[in-house]
């Protein structure tokens, strides 16, 4: 382990970024789903900075209540304050906390990294919201809480300023679900917030194409008609999803685990889905096309949904790193392409990009 660390240091040499730490994470029995996501989040720099800030603010609380947020902030601080530049850290307290909070992750079974990410971000939001409303209690009446309550939807129309935590500021985007009644042509728009986009995938396609399909027009008819408020009846309609507000950090989850009805179980889709290092969201309602840069990929290794391994690729200071639990290695940017998937169903390649993390580039023009 120590040797691997020094190997990485040697590889980077003088290019080792000032103040940066590259630490592997110990595996506590199938916790690679957790480790891979933690590494991606650690190298999501705006998110990391907020956590370190949070740790600083809450270092010596009167009431040292432990929760997922404090455990994560502790862990990130522990990594960033290491004297050595590389090495291995055991995220023991964090993993214990995860297992305490959610029975899903209690066992030693293979877990889904996306489910974990989703759980983690929503937990963090809950904790931050609770802290925020606790702080506000007394000083204000909590009409805001109502607007903020359900995370999904109802934001349309009269919009009270919702409580926006820094988790939201980083990850939250808004989708608009537009439905057009084909009889009266009235368009009904409903907003939904999201922390990540789950995309259906196709063999030999690109993320661009998957995003296009995601926001393509779908016709609601037959069994699936739409109740038009204006016509006061079920009507055929066209529905499409548009990204109203692109998030700062765009997390794309590729739906590689698909329930196959006639098998009665999940199957892994090893499809080759290419993802560019730069991406633009086209179907936004904003004027300029928002541009993103890829900085992390959580990779699922294996052929089935119930077993396998997770690793992550991370871009830090223009170097790509490969995190596999305890091990950290440098890889070539071109090697990212080896995680696209398999062009043929039966292939020896089993390392497939599963969750992609893109960071929005600041707009040079405006």
């Amino acid at each position: 382990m120590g040797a691997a660390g020094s190997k990485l240091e040697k590889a980077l040499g003088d290019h080792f970024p000032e103040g940066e730490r590259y630490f592997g994470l110990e595996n506590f029995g199938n916790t690679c789903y957790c480790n891979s996501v933690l590494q991606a989040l650690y190298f999501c720099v705006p998110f990391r900075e907020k956590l370190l800030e949070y740790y600083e603010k809450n270092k010596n609380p009167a009431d040292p209540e432990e929760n997922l947020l404090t455990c994560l902030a502790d862990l990130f601080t522990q990594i960033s304050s290491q004297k050595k530049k590389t090495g291995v850290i055991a995220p023991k307290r964090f993993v214990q906390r995860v297992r305490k909070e959610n029975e899903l992750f209690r066992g030693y079974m293979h877990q889904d990294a996306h489910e974990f990410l989703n759980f983690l971000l929503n937990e963090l939001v809950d904790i931050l919201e609770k802290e925020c409303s606790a702080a506000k209690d007394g000083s204000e009446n909590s009409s805001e809480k109502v607007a903020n309550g359900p995370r999904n939807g109802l934001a349309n129309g009269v919009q009270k300023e919702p409580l926006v935590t820094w988790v939201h500021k980083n990850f939250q985007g808004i989708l608009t679900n537009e439905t057009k009644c084909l009889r009266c042509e009235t368009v009904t728009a409903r907003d939904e917030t999201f922390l990540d986009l789950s995309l259906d995938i196709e063999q030999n396609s690109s993320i661009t194409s998957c995003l296009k399909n995601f926001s393509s027009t779908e016709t609601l008819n037959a069994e699936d008609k739409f109740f038009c408020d204006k016509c006061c009846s079920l009507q055929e309609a066209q529905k499409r999803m548009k990204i109203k507000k692109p998030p700062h950090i765009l997390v794309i989850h590729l739906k590689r685990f698909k329930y196959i009805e006639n098998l009665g179980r999940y199957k892994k889709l090893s499809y080759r889905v290419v993802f560019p290092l730069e991406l633009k969201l086209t179907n936004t309602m904003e004027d300029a096309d928002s541009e993103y840069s890829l900085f992390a990929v959580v990779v699922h290794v294996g052929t089935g949904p119930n077993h396998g391994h997770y690793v992550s690729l991370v871009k830090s200071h223009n170097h790509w790193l490969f995190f596999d639990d305890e091990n950290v290695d440098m890889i070539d940017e071109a090697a990212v392409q080896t995680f696209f998937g398999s062009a043929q169903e039966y292939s020896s390649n089993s390392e497939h990009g599963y969750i992609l993390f893109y960071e929005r580039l600041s707009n040079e023009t405006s």
Partner: protein
Amino acid sequence: MNNSSTNASTTSTTSTTINGGISTPNTGLKNYFKTPEGRYNLHSEKSHPSTLLHFSHGKSVSQVTLANLKEKSASTTPTSSSGYSATSSVRSAAAKLLGTSNGGRALSFVGVNGANKVVAATTKTASIGNSSNGGSLPMANFDGKGLYIIFNVGDTLYIGDLNTQEKDPIKSINFANSNPVCHTFNPEANAKDGHDLLIGLNSGEVYTVSLRQQLQDIGKKLIGAQVYNKDGSINNSRCTSLAWVPQGNGAFVVAHADGNFYVYEKGKDATIDSSFSLIKDPTHFSVAHAKSNKSNPVARWHICQGSINRIAFSPDGTHLAVVGRDGFLRVYDYQKEQLLCGGKSYYGAILCCAWSMDGKYILTGGEDDLVQVWSMEDRKVIAWGEGHNSWVSGVAFDPYWSPPSSDSTGENVMYRFGSVGQDTQLLLWDFSMDELVVPLRRCPPGGSPTYSAGSQSSQWDSAVPSGTLQPAPCMRDVPKLSPLVAHRVYSEPLSDLIFTQHTILTACREGHVKVWMRPGSSESISTDSETLSSSTEKTPIPNCK
């Protein structure tokens, strides 16, 4: 037409049965596609021997080079240089004899220095289907005798004979230490040593050889090669693209994965390496010349950070287009060593580029799934082709296509081009400046006029000064093109595309090449008459040259 459809399907079936080892599963791939001018039929497939497993598979992508060796195969002079030519006619005769036995293996004859030898039956013929129509075999009269393709798979470079329908290559050249990754051929390279084929390796090394010499020897070695940048002594990053300088007296250009390309001249000593000054600012374009005028390479152009993915000279050799990882197309005045114009892709790397025959347009394709049409006159992107569902890996204008004569009024010039992508599709596009519908622009930067349709484009390019790079355009500002034809060619991502006079060649990343016969071509060949099929009366001519 009926006849040709039967041919095509037979071809496909037999090729799967004969080469059972190659996985051509029934994935609903059609062996024809329709265009307004008629039907393109699958003529043959070229591939590497299926028994070979390539460990490096997937790491290097197959590219295809077309080589039209000039000497006619009919004239069999017993000189060493035409020995191979005798081959071609003998082989055809052999195939004719043996082709009738369905599924049988054909012996293949390869002439070495005029003498014909029987070579172990490692090659098989897939041209059986055609014998049923009683006519002569297509290969006997295939236009352009001496038409070969060169393609790389893993550590091997293969040479396939386009004159026959044989699937297996006629020669394979093994590279022991590094993979061949790019290659190009120019019959008029005009080098003193007769070298016409350039091969670039993963290691950065470059070889020049004579294709004819390779064909005269059936061994697995490269014959009579000249090596440059040996052991990567000048540049040890991967070769990414090569080009002979048109009318360059054997000069050639080699692009590398580190953003540099080098100019080599044949007269110079290949054994002396040049030294170049250090690149002061890697973010800036710079050209350095060799300190000695005897050594090779003679110049280093530093283009960009990250890989150069493709370079292409304009047909007259004055301009050089360079595309790469940073998503920019850059067009240089090659003689003046100056940037003329260029621009950024919508997003992501640009993977391929190609010139129109008249040098007016450049196609690029890349990681934004778009086919981009760049106008040299306007110095900007004038259209985006939307239709691929993944990265665009190959683009080319069709120099043999001629527009339908009925509506060609005045100066409206039509172009046909094609593109292949990692979505396994071949797309064909028709493009005419007059038919471009330029969207109304909402927020004109710098007060440029509102565009309507059509060719007043020259009015709005005045804003683009020479020698500058354009930023990525907004999606809504660029006119869109839709493909004429979308055809799924293979179950693997595609990597390359070539138009020949009678065919379209498509290649997939794993090194399978498909030969698509143009409408009318197969009939005219099989009947050996001068009248073309009724569906197409026009003789294909290169556009606007």
